[in-house]
C-alpha cells in the first residue's frame, strides 16, 4: 500500500508513548530507592551509634555490667561453636539425604511426599525448631542448655535448606558425565563418589554457607535453648553452656542504660561483618566455579 495512506491507518503518538515509558522508569527507580533507603538508614544509624564503642577489647572481653567494659567474647565463641558443630552435623547428613533422593530413591509417591515435606520444613518458623529442640534435646535427651543441644537444634533448622541446595547441585551434574562413567564400567556408587559428589561440591558449599550465615543471625531458636546471656566463660566442651551473638545483642538492647544502646549497635556491626563475609565467600565460590565450567 502506498505510504500516503499510512497516516490514515496508524496513529503513532510517539510522544505520548515515550512519556509513559519515562513515568514507568521513574516508578521502577522509586521502588529500588524505597527498598534500599530502609537498609541504608538502618546501617547508617547502627554505624553512627555503634562505631564509637567498637574496639579490640570489645571483641576479646567478656560481657560486663558496665558498658565501657562489656565485650562479645563469649558470644563470638558461642556462635563459632554453634556454627562449627551445625556445619559438621548438616553437611554429611544433608549431602547424604540429597544423594539418596537424587540418585537412589525410586520415583514414587513416597519419595514425592518426602520431597514436598523437606521443602515445607524449610519454611517452618525458626522458633518452632527452638521449642522442638528445647523439648527433645534439652529435656528429653537431657543435654541441658548446652552447645550440643543448640547445635543440634540449629541443624534441624538448617538441614532442609542444605538438602535442597545439595539436590540442586547434584541435579546440575551433566548426565553425559554419568553416562561416560557408566560406560567405563563404573558401579553406581563409583559414579556417585567419583563424578556426582565431586562436581556438586561447589554448589553444596555455596548453599551450606548461605544457610549457616542465616543461622548465625538466628536469635529465636537459640533463646529457647539458651536462656543464659551473661556468660563470663567460653565453652570448651559441647556440653558447656553458651550464648550467641544475636542473644547477646538482644540482651544489650533491652538494658535501660544509654551506654548499652551503643554496645548493642557495636554488636550488630560485628554480626553484620560476619554475615557479609560468609555471603562473600559463598558468592566467590559460586563465581569461581561458574567461570571454570564455562571454559
Amino acid at each position, binding site marked *: 500500500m502506498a505510504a500516503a495512506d499510512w497516516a490514515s491507518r496508524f496513529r503513532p503518538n510517539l510522544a505520548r508513548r515515550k512519556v509513559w515509558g519515562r513515568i514507568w522508569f521513574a516508578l521502577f527507580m522509586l521502588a529500588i530507592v524505597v527498598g534500599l533507603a530502609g537498609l541504608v538508614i538502618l546501617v547508617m544509624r547502627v554505624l553512627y551509634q555503634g562505631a564509637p564503642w567498637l574496639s579490640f577489647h570489645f571483641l576479646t572481653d567478656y560481657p560486663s555490667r558496665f558498658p565501657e567494659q562489656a565485650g562479645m567474647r563469649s558470644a563470638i565463641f558461642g556462635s563459632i561453636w554453634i556454627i562449627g558443630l551445625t556445619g559438621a552435623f548438616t553437611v554429611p547428613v544433608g549431602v547424604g539425604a540429597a544423594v539418596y533422593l537424587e540418585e537412589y530413591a525410586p520415583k514414587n509417591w513416597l519419595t514425592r511426599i518426602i520431597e514436598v515435606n523437606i521443602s515445607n520444613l524449610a519454611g517452618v518458623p525458626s522458633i518452632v525448631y527452638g521449642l522442638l529442640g528445647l523439648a527433645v534435646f534439652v529435656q528429653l535427651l537431657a543435654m541441658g542448655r548446652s552447645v550440643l543441644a543448640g547445635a543440634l537444634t540449629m541443624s534441624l533448622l538448617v538441614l532442609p535448606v542444605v538438602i535442597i541446595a545439595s539436590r540442586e547441585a547434584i541435579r546440575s551434574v551433566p548426565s553425559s558425565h554419568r*553416562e*561416560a562413567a*557408566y560406560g567405563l564400567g563404573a558401579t553406581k556408587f563409583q559414579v556417585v563418589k*567419583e563424578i556426582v559428589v565431586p562436581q556438586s561440591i561447589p554448589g553444596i558449599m555455596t548453599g551450606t554457607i548461605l544457610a549457616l550465615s542465616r543461622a548465625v543471625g538466628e536469635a529465636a531458636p537459640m533463646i529457647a535453648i539458651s536462656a543464659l546471656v551473661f556468660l563470663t566463660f567460653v565453652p570448651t566442651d559441647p556440653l558447656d553452656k553458651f550464648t550467641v551473638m544475636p542473644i547477646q545483642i538482644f540482651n544489650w538492647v533491652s538494658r535501660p542504660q544509654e551506654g548499652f544502646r551503643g554496645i548493642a549497635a557495636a554488636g550488630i556491626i560485628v554480626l553484620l561483618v560476619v554475615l557479609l563475609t560468609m555471603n562473600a565467600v559463598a558468592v566467590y565460590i559460586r563465581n569461581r566455579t561458574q567461570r571454570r*565450567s564455562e*571454559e
Partner: protein
Amino acid sequence: MTTADSAEMTGADTALKVRNLNAYYGAFRALKDVSFDIPRNKVTALIGPSGCGKSTLLRCFNRMNELIPGARIEGEVLFNDENVYHPAIDPTEVRYRIGMVFQKPNPFPKSIYDNVAFGLRINGYRGDYDEAVERSLRGAALWDEVKDRLHESGFALSGGQQQRLCIARALAVEPEIILMDEPASALDPIATLEIESLMRELIRDYTVVVVTHNMQQAARVSDKTAFLNMDEDRAGYLVETGDTHQIFTNPADERTEAYITGRFG
C-alpha cells in the same frame, strides 16, 4: 529381517551376534526383532532415518540402555558366544569390555591425564598408569598434541581433540569393542576426517560399531553396513545388512536404495 547374511560367519570372526532383539521404552516398542552379526576387527555402520532406534540398538550392546528408567530389552546379544543379558552376567563387566563414545564429546572436568586414567582407577588397574595413559592417547592419535600438557583441563582442548580424548578414555580399559554414537556429528569437517581415519586404525586391535546419519561417512569408513527403518508404529527394524560396498552399490531392498539415494530420512 528380509535379507539374511550371505554366509553365516563363524564364531571367531564375529564380535557380536544380535538375536531377536526387542527394546521397549515403557509400552513403546523401539526395536522389533533385530538379528544380525557384527564382524570382529571391522567397522560396522548402523544407518537409518532419525528416530528408528540406532542409538537404542547401540546402547543395547553394552547394556547402557537399561539405565534409562522404563527401558526394557528382550532377546540376546552374544559377545564371545555369551549372552550379555544372561542373568548371571553383571552389566558393569559388559560395559568395561564394550566401550562407548558419545555423540557430544563429554570429557570429565579433570585433567587430560585424569580423564584417561579414570577407567583405570575405577577398575583397579595394577600396572603403570603413565604407560597406560600414553598408550591410550597414542591409540587415539592424540598423544603428540597433548604430551606436554597432560595436566591441563580436558576442556581446554578443541572439540575434535575432546572427542579423541573420549576415545582414549574408552581405550584405556582395553575393551574389545568400541561403540560410537554419531561421534563426529558435533565436529567440523577436518576433525570429522580425523575421527574417521582413527576408526580405520582402531580396527587393527578393536571392533568398531558406529552410528551415523551421514551416508558418505558410512560409505567411507565402514566395512559392513546395517540399515534400520521404521514404519507408522515407529518401531525400528532391520531392513538389510551386508558389505558396505554392496549396500551402497547394489542394495537388495528397495527401501535401502531409497534411503541411501536420499529419497527419505
